[in-house]
């Protein structure tokens, strides 16, 4: 399978290089000259962009970006053009049949780059959450603030717990099957969002986690597993994802697989831990407690560690 994918990728690379070379005009939108500002600011824009237009914008006046009394809000400064850039060219009269020049930023066919658009947002929104944006994975893949946020609406889905996941899954298709699996965090129920664990604006950790490590992220809600305890289970202290799939699993408790095979990946001591369980251990056969219900955890139930003086085998 890997060879097929690699072959397809190699073919894709060659085709892409050819087409891109043919299509490339060498121009960059950011190199164009700065257009002039409008003469009357937002009043110029709102003559066209009312609620009956193709691009209605009036809902922005119900958002923090148009709050009366806040001197930092765009409407206390350059109004619409604080974010969209100078609209003098876009707002001028055009002859019949002439195409209207695009607004520089945050519009259809805008000429400014994603980086430059993002800088507009970051001019004001440069708090701790966005401290690590510049070298983040999302930034590296040219993601723009407006790709996720709807700033013209009071209801920005990516900021609503019950709706954020759908925004993320538009790109993270590989997680869509995970959140629909039999065992999952309360994501499908709308009670947990991706940003409960991840920091989409950039983090220095793997998978853009909000906390410094995977385990610290998990302990945020599962502090009972933090310890330290007397008898530790080595993988638990290292990385929860050695045994759990946080985005969803076909097995209970988000486990990567079921015991006993999960445990037998690391335990093969003489005696019952090493025995390969088969269909003969089902209720139709000898109904083995080493396989059924909790399997190993029927006895070794303290898999996250035990603080009992006699709990070295994780059963007390």
């Amino acid at each position, binding site marked *: 399978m890997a060879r097929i*994918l*690699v072959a397809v990728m190699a073919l*894709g690379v060659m085709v892409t290089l050819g087409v891109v070379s043919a299509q*490339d005009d060498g121009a960059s939108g950011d190199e164009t000259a700065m257009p002039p500002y409008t003469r009357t600011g937002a009043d110029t824009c709102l003559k066209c962009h009312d609620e009956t237009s193709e691009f209605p914008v009036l809902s922005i006046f119900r958002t923090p970006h148009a709050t009366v009394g806040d001197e930092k809000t765009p409407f206390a400064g350059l109004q619409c053009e604080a974010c969209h850039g100078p609209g003098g060219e876009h707002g001028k009269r055009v002859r019949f049949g002439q195409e209207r020049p695009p607004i520089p930023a945050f519009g259809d066919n805008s000429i400014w780059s994603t980086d430059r658009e993002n800088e507009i947002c970051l001019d004001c929104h440069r708090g701790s959450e966005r401290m690590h944006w510049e070298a983040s994975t999302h930034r590296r893949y040219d993601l723009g603030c407006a790709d996720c946020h709807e700033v013209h609406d009071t209801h920005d889905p990516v900021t609503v717990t019950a709706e954020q996941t759908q925004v993320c899954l538009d790109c993270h298709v590989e997680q869509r099957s995970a959140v629909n699996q039999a065992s999952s965090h309360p994501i499908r*129920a709308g*009670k947990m969002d991706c940003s409960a664990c991840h920091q989409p604006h950039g983090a220095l950790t793997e998978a853009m986690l909000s906390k410094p490590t995977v385990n610290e992220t998990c302990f945020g809600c599962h502090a009972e597993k933090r310890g330290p305890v007397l008898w530790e289970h080595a993988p638990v202290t290292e990385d929860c994802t050695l045994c759990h799939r946080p985005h969803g699993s076909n097995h209970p408790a988000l486990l990567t697989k079921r015991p006993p095979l999960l445990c037998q990946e690391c335990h093969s001591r*003489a005696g019952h831990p090493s025995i390969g369980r088969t269909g003969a251990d089902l209720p139709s056969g000898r109904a083995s407690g080493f396989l059924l219900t909790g399997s190993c955890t029927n006895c070794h139930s303290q898999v996250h560690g035990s603080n009992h003086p006699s709990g070295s085998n994780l059963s*007390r």
Partner: protein
Amino acid sequence: MAMSDCDHIHSRPPALAALLVLVLSLIPGTALAQDDDDPAAEDETVDTSSWRCRLCPFETGWSGSITAGGGYVSEDSFEFGDYTGLEEEGAYPILGGELRYRGENAGYLDLSADNLGLESRSARIEGGRQGSYRLYLEYDSLPHYIADDAQTVFYGARTGSSNLTLPSDWVRGDTTADMTTLDGSLRDVDIEQEREAIGLGAGIKQGDNWRYNLDFRRFTQEGNRVQGGNFLLRSALLVVPVDYVTEQMDASVGYVTDRWQMELAYHGSFFTNNDESVSWDNPYASVTDGDDRGRMSTPPDNSFNQLLLSGAWRPEGGWLSTSARVAYGRMEQNEDFLPATINPAISSPASSRDSLEGRVDTLTANARARAVPWKPLSITGEVYYDERDNRTPRDKYVQIMTDQYIADTRTNKPYGFEKTGASLDADYRLLRRLTLSAGASREDYERTFQEVERTRTDEYSLGLRAGPWANLQLRLRQTREEREAAGDYETLEVMPAENPRLRKYHLADRVRDVTSANLSWSPSAWASIGVSADYAEDDYEESDIGLTGATDMTYGLDVSLVPAEGMTAYAFVSQQRIESDIGGRDNVSGAVWSAELNDNIRSVGIGGEVRDILRDGLDLGLDLTYTRSRGETDVDKRGIAPPFPDLKSDLRSIGLFTRYEVSETTDLRLDYRFEQYRTEDFYYDEVEPDTISNVLTLGRESPDYDVHVIGLSARYRF
């Protein structure tokens, strides 16, 4: 792979590098505080004297909405109601709303509430002055319904007691079949938990630069869970109480400028368990004197305190951006030990300590820099350090095995590790729409008390991002990761003996190849299509006992359409196939066996929404989804073993809503939802409480349900 002395990870170079970046952040701070690259400077040249904003409908005063109504659930089902609170057949209230206030001086107040009539209720109030300060108070409840078909013989299970006792007429047996009063003693018990969270906090912005934040959260988790309690090789599944409280505090102070910023933060987390142990009667016939009861520990109270220092520096011109974070934390636990046994026939051995005095110091440091030495090239470098310095004292503990007999004396192993890594990635924009990428990374991982003292992982990647046409974006990436032990794999000396051929999968030599491809295409302004495929293959080339190989393949197709104004539609297909190969051998030298596990999960969905259908103000929406999961378990042992049935789950869901705007202030909404869930799980199905001779189970079955939910609500806006 050989390692030189200079590779020794005690040198902590990434930690120093992270600190260096932080220090660098401070040095330019004074110089750059008077930043002359402020875009506002450019704005000052704009003549805004005639910008009146006469047409701007700024919002001030009160506004909001109230939603009220009722619904009906057609069937009891814990599985359906898990996390949503719709677990019971019958009527339920629909109640929620929001209230907003916007003042002339940027003062604001937001109040929102959802699902007020359900266990999944939540509410939040936030107020303050925009740009200056904010205060908030929030509440959230999360019901977790686990099983409604469990049965137990223990008294106390239904009342949340940590003292579980058997009926007075209980007949103890060598096996569950010998427990002759079992059937008459079984009582229904629901397995469920409720997690409630209350949070409050404040944030202040002082001037252009200073930021202060203080947040406090208190979680309570109450209910019960299933836990095995054993006496040697005979066990009973117990319903044990859950009564946890976790309090968290976060405080930070930050200084922000256009070119650099710093933040000092504190994180505290304090866990309290209101049950120190669980005790239960032994339902089996006595094997040793005094083994009538057992007692096990519960998660002990613990705390975590952490200081975090973060910084970022972005020199003028955008040619360099750096950021770093150093976090130092301490986990502590010192709960009084339980006695080694509660068996009165065994004198509890003398212990050198009454509590663990457990302490783990954690240090993580990360630093990342992105440089653009010339325009087509960007380079991202990263170093990191992660240490778990376990300072828990080691001692000998005599083991009283399952409250029945004195076994050996064991010494605890306070596990620790140090992880050091660095990576370098380069993106080269060959053409305006074509970027080539290459990267390399190295990680050294040193562990204590484990079979391998040190592993080294090297990773190399190549990638491509291209937009052959403006409406098509393509991303390809190929990665190879190689992990090798820096020394011999030394099997731990334990009794009974471990198979010397075993290689634990997180320590074993491994080669991982990952291929990923993503395509995003917008054939027109009203359609977008996303396709992705990811394939990962793990080869544990030196392992023949334990995990020997694994693959994970995921692909997906996502289509979004806006075929007409007021109309949206979507469709998706995603599939994941996870395969694992495990090798084993009975009793080290006995029968060889191999296991192959395949999990196949497929999700498909289609839906859409139409506004102003048939008449103005009438909206209609539809969502259809189907998720099919299959788990295949194939164990080959001497070629004669009967096969396992597949693990199956099928979830079909229909969601339909219609909304009608009765007036400018009022609309009605009718929701209908149907879910059908079918599961087969051989681990639980057909396992009655006495099916297994040495495990007294709860008789749970895998869940099935067909649930219809209908809801009618009105929303009034003001």
